[in-house]
């Protein structure tokens, strides 16, 4: 637990040291959200309509996942470059645990930021979104997938070292995938979408927030399967990569 707390303190000290930069980032994100919100309202006259709430929530979720994953990739890349990563591998905790701590801290920070932004945006637009309580389940399962994706990103960094451009490509591909309303497609496509990370959770949240009828057993099962699948894939790939870098002595090479 002390290792997790230490990771949390480190993040706090960084926020304290670079307060101005983080406040600027925060305002930038609020402006982006406002633009999406008002843009969505304008288009929403006929096309989006009631799905405006879903758009805002979807974007919050996407930015949360994106922040967490890209922050993870960037941090590990910088740590590998400076030699810190090697030193972190010398701590008496497993490398799996080390990156789990990092993922959870990133999730907490990004989550706090996303909630704050959402409250500010709702306050300024006077458009208060009502969240059905059931949404908490797909939301938490989506965060679990984020941990699995975090392991995948770390594996890519450990194996290929510089993956800045890959992270950007990944970001846009993923935004595209999340915007597809798989819930409106046929059953086969719906089942297949359960293989794509976070897709069943996003469909579930969209359906819940728009008060549409849906098969809760399917979405719960699909989301649970999706969360377990991506955590296992992440851990498996991470384990292989960890072995590879140790065998080849490439942990510190950047």
């Amino acid at each position, binding site marked *: 637990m*002390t*290792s997790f*707390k*230490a*990771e949390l*303190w*480190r993040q706090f*000290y*960084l926020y304290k*040291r*670079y307060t101005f930069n983080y406040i600027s980032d925060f305002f930038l994100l609020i402006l982006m959200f406002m633009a999406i919100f008002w843009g969505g309202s304008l288009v929403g006259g006929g096309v989006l309509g009631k799905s405006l709430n879903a758009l805002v929530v979807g974007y919050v979720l996407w930015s949360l996942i994106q922040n967490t994953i890209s922050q993870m990739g960037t941090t590990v890349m910088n740590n590998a470059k*400076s*030699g*810190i990563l*090697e*030193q*972190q*591998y*010398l*701590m*008496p*905790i*497993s490398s799996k645990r080390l990156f789990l701590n990092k993922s959870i801290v990133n999730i907490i920070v990004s989550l706090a930021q996303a909630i704050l932004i959402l409250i500010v945006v709702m306050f300024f637009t006077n458009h208060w979104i009502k969240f059905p309580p059931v949404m908490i389940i797909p939301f938490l399962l989506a965060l679990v997938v984020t941990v699995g994706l975090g392991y995948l990103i770390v594996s890519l960094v450990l194996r290929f070292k510089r993956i800045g451009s890959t992270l950007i490509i990944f970001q846009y591909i993923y935004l595209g995938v999340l915007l597809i309303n798989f819930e409106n497609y046929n059953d086969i496509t719906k089942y297949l979408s359960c293989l794509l990370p976070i897709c069943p959770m996003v469909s579930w949240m969209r359906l819940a927030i728009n008060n549409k009828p849906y098969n809760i057993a399917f979405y719960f099962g699909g989301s649970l399967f999706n969360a377990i699948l991506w955590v296992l894939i992440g851990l498996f790939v991470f384990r292989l990569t960890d*072995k590879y870098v*140790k*065998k*080849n*002595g490439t*942990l*510190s090479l950047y």
Partner: protein
Amino acid sequence: MTLLSVNNISKTYRKTKKRAVSDVSFKVNAGDIVAFLGPNGAGKTTTLKIILNLVSPDKGSIFFDGKDITNNNLFLLKNTGVLLEGSKNMFWALSPMENFIYWGGQRGLSKKEAKKRGEELLKTFGLLDKKYTSITMLSRGMQQIIGICCAMIAKPRLLILDEPTLGLDINATQIMTNSLRLLSKSGVGILITTHQLDFAQEVANKILLINHGKLVFSDSVKDSLERLNKRIIFEVAFSRTLTAKEVEKLLIYCEELKKTDKIYRLSGREKTKLTEILKMLSELPVIKIETVTRGLDEIFKYYIGRNNDD
């Protein structure tokens, strides 16, 4: 008591096909300060990384406190402080105290414990007033000391330091030497790699010399220096070039290494008494005479030179 036992470890990097380490074995006991020496690329860092499981060995085993840690070294890491390649074990945007809280936390210390221990360490090294200064604002030497403090934060039983004196001035090196001696007296085993042979000679009680991945020399510093300095060596300057007859006379008592026409390095032959050498020298035009004490550099030159010639 043996803390660390390294047995016949070997490693060949697959990509470069380079045999980085070959059948290396040694021990570090509690209270030992072992200097691990060798030229660049000799295999020192690879050996350390194998011990720390950052690189997997092709063969061999490693034991810490009697337990096999070759494939699972959490037990070693719990009891070991490490500083690899200078001061890279720190977050540069944070202060020393914030770094202590982070690295102490990773080693199981609470924030309060890490702060207390950090203050003790900073006091020892005379850097208490820098505890809230960002690492980037500190001098190279101070950064190095903070790096070492981070390695020592959880009172390790074994300390592994890769080039700990890099960038340190004379005062800081002396503080470091004293601190390492203190730690060693309290039973901490210390393994150091360094290129500074005078520092190694001053601080270490054992030396390991590695070249081309092979351990070429391993002995206690005291014994090897005693052996090396068994025979008296003089450096003698003469006011003029010696004649052939005078050199002949010199060689009756001494083996000689001519440095220049007027300066000779002489070592007394076995069973030759010091008084006989001095008597012989009194008959020659000596203007300066100095005894020479040989240090680790001689051993280093001998083994590394010989192996590099092979």
